[in-house]
């Protein structure tokens, strides 16, 4: 197998044109926050375009799953990380070389950059040789990098770099400094005067005393005096400096494109693994979902909203996990229950899980089967628009109309509390019409609403209800459970609190 990219198995799957624009549903699902957090600190790799492009077939997802699983091996992760650190250092050196002004200084920084690059490639090739790799992607890459490290050009680059460097390191010179002038000459084994002085006073040594050595701050750049000195040194020792100059001109294009692309693309996995380590540390689970573009009987156990969990963990709070499943002809979750009970979170979780699955990433949960969608449509109520009632309703209808027109049986639709600005009667009427349409479209759907009637619309709908603590209905559990939306859960819990349930009353009224 020939290696193309660590993100895509086949060339034709690759991203044609990288987009910097997030899909429009990103904000509704809080995916923007998640991707921001994942890519934070990795801006130099420009990873967002990768996260903006969901995969379309199960094989591509499998390709990434395998690679991600290889990288979950700590040794391999560290190997790649060490490679990445060196590549980063290399880029910094190149940047420094570009920034600098004096020729001898510039060229030396370039030499260091290439030296680091050689070390990065050699190290990675060596590490991967003994690594326990299983993924097709990594196996192909190993072959590539091993061959590259053995290639004529790379071997030439390596020896040439070492030679030029060794020649320069062998240069030793003297500077005689007077008040307003200095003289540079070759070093002629003049004796070390510090040692001489130290020896003269050695007989007085009485155990440890204070260190009077001054630590000098080393600036990266040369000042014009240092530059002048090096210029003189280059005149005294022309050969090594000439070699350096030739070397720089010959090897401007030292960087291998495939290696550079790997360095960037593998960060997609590294960034994601770093990110989810945070949650795993807090006891939350991730799994590799069974991804299919056929089967719509999806499920997820112990899932959670990554964006919410991220902020909860950082403030030290615990995270509530929820399960869901669809069986037979079920396609639509109708989520109802008290406010602030986690309904919107459930809807977002559903969207996030499917999106992350289509990234080829492990998803929140202990076990999952998720559908590979073609599109996601979201329609979330936005508070700030309530002031413009008429316009809003109209706007809502147009947008929903548009969604329904474009939705295919492979789409996911997420509706959150729509039409709240109109009367209950109208709401029910409109909602029923729309749910009929969605059922016809065969799309997967989560619909958050407080209209109980929708919950038992047909065999395609599943009723989910946000739960409260039985003895204290003002406390939310943030659990969303499958149960009929009888509007009773809330009332029953209040009753239980006042011991007015059937059982309680039977007991209390002791006749």
């Amino acid at each position, binding site marked *: 197998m020939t290696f193309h990219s660590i993100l895509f198995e086949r060339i034709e799957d690759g991203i044609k044109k990288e987009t910097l624009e997030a899909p429009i549903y990103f904000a509704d699902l809080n995916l923007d926050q998640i991707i921001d957090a994942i890519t934070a600190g990795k801006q130099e790799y420009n990873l967002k375009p990768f996260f903006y492009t969901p995969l379309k077939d199960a094989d591509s997802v499998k390709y990434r799953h395998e690679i991600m699983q290889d990288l979950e091996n700590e040794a391999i992760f560290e190997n790649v990380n060490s490679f990445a650190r060196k590549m980063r250092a290399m880029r910094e050196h190149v940047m420094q070389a570009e920034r600098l002004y004096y020729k001898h200084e510039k060229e030396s920084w370039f030499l260091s950059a290439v030296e680091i690059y050689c070390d990065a490639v050699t190290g990675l090739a060596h590490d991967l040789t003994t690594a326990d790799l299983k993924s097709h992607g990594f196996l192909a890459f190993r072959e590539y990098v091993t061959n590259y490290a053995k290639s004529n050009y790379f071997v030439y680059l390596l020896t040439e770099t070492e030679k030029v460097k060794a020649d320069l390191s062998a240069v030793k010179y003297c500077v005689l400094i007077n008040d307003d002038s200095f003289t540079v000459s070759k070093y002629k084994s003049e004796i070390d005067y510090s040692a001489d002085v130290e020896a003269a006073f050695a007989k007085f040594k009485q155990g440890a005393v204070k260190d009077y*050595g001054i630590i000098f701050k080393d600036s990266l750049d040369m000042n014009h005096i240092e530059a002048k000195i090096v210029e003189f040194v280059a005149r005294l020792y022309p050969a090594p400096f000439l070699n350096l100059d030739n070397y720089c001109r010959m090897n401007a294009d030292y960087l291998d494109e495939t290696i550079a692309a790997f360095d960037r693309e593998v960060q997609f996995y590294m960034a994601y693994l770093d990110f989810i380590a945070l949650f795993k540390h807090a006891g939350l689970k991730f799994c590799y979902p069974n991804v299919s573009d056929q089967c719509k009987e999806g499920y997820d156990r112990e899932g959670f909203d990554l964006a919410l969990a991220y902020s909860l963990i950082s403030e030290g709070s615990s995270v509530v996990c929820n399960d869901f499943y669809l069986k037979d002809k079920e396609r639509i979750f109708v989520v109802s229950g008290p406010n602030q009970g986690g309904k919107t979170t459930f809807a977002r979780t559903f969207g996030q899980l499917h999106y992350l699955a289509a990234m080829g990433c492990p998803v929140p949960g202990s076990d999952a089967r998720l559908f590979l969608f073609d599109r996601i449509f979201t329609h979330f109520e936005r508070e700030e628009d309530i002031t413009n009632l008429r316009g809003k309703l109209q706007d809502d209808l147009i947008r929903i109309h548009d969604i329904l027109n474009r939705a295919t049986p492979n789409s996911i639709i997420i509706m959150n509390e729509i039409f709240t600005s109109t009367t209950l009667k109208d709401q029910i009427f409109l909602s029923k019409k729309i749910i009929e349409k969605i059922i016809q479209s065969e799309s997967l759907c989560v619909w958050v609403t407080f209209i109980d009637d929708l919950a038992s619309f047909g065999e395609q709908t599943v009723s989910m209800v946000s739960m409260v603590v039985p003895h204290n209905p003002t406390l939310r559990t943030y659990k969303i459970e499958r149960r009929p939306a009888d509007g009773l859960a809330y009332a029953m819990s209040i009753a239980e609190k006042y011991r007015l349930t059937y059982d309680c009353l039977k007991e209390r009224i002791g006749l």
Partner: protein
Amino acid sequence: MKAFLMHRDQDFDLRQQLPPHEQALTQDLELNTLFNAMALGDKFLLETAKHAVLSGLNNDLNTILYRQSILKDCLKNHDIVRHMYGIAVESIEKGKKSVWWFSGRYPGGILRGSIEALQVFVSGLKKLRAIADEHSDKFESEGFTTLFRTLKKELSDEYFTVIQNHLINLEFNEGVLISAELGKGNKGINYALRKSPREKKGWFERIFTKKPSAYTFRLHPRDTRGATALSELKNRGINLVANALAQSTDHILGFFGMLRTELSFYIGCMNLHRQLVQKGEPTCFPLPATSGERRHSYQKLYDVGLSLTMKQRIVGNDGNANGKSIIVITGANQGGKTTFLRSIGSAQLMMQCGMFVPAESFSASICSGLFTHYKREEDTTMKSGKLDEELGRMSNIVDGITLNSMVLLNESFAATNEREGSEIARQIICALLEKGIKIFFVTHQ
């Protein structure tokens, strides 16, 4: 180079821990009178006197004899020893005036300060050498003989020439020569100061050198950034040597400091000796015996503290308690029992730190610890009762006690009725004796 006047092979450590009960010892044996007589108002002398006397219990037999012979030399040549002490004090004080280098931020400043201090020290060392040359034959003790031999050997004329040359070279009148290698970015690294060869090139080499072997750059007078950069480079070059020199300065300061400290003990002894001789009181060098022996014999032993506070001479005591582990002193009140106990204690301390003792003759086995348990005046602030307090102190003593310690009990356990007190005392004393402790017990009962 070491002074080694207090120990044959180690420095005298002014920071060493004194025994935890030093306050009780000082109070019960009225040692402050002794210390003040040694110091004569000099704070430094007071400090070393106190330290030397109270830490004397750690000394072995050899150290005691080593110091005795040094002290004998001192008493014989007191002017020379005081002169040496004066040189040490002067060098330290003058040298420390150059301490502005301590806060120096630049190797150049550190270097200049060190050179200045070293000039002072070299002149002090030369004076010491001169004393060694002139007077060493008047000294017999191992300590002084070794010190003078060291001074002569280490501080030869050639050595002083070498040092002088260094101090001149380090002024860098001909510029600072540094070597360097190429590091990252071709910037200089591994800066090292080099000694420029004195001799100029021969005519042959001068004629046949084709390429110039050196390039010189002269700064523009207004190039202040260049001047700063050049001076930093110079500082990098002399960083190591400035450190080496400043550390050497510290070391030599350390030598003078040690010489001063160790001599100051003998100066204190000489001060005390002079006062006792003026009063006509006898002194003698004691004969120490090993700690395992039970020896205690003396003639005309008197309490040095009491004598120093009285105008007239005081009465000494004779005694022989060789082979005894407990000595009980009884008799009427105001009969000098406490004074006698004090004279036993302070003589023991003076002997063990290497001093003479206030007696015509004195011989005792050395003890590994000396403890006093005196009746204390009733303290109203104290919550615990008197017997409580006494027994508490006794318990502390037992915590620190070691084999062959000596305990001085003065009217102990008298805070309760006689029968109980006796019983307590009996039990404690029996136990201590069985554990190999020597006891002096003053009681009126």
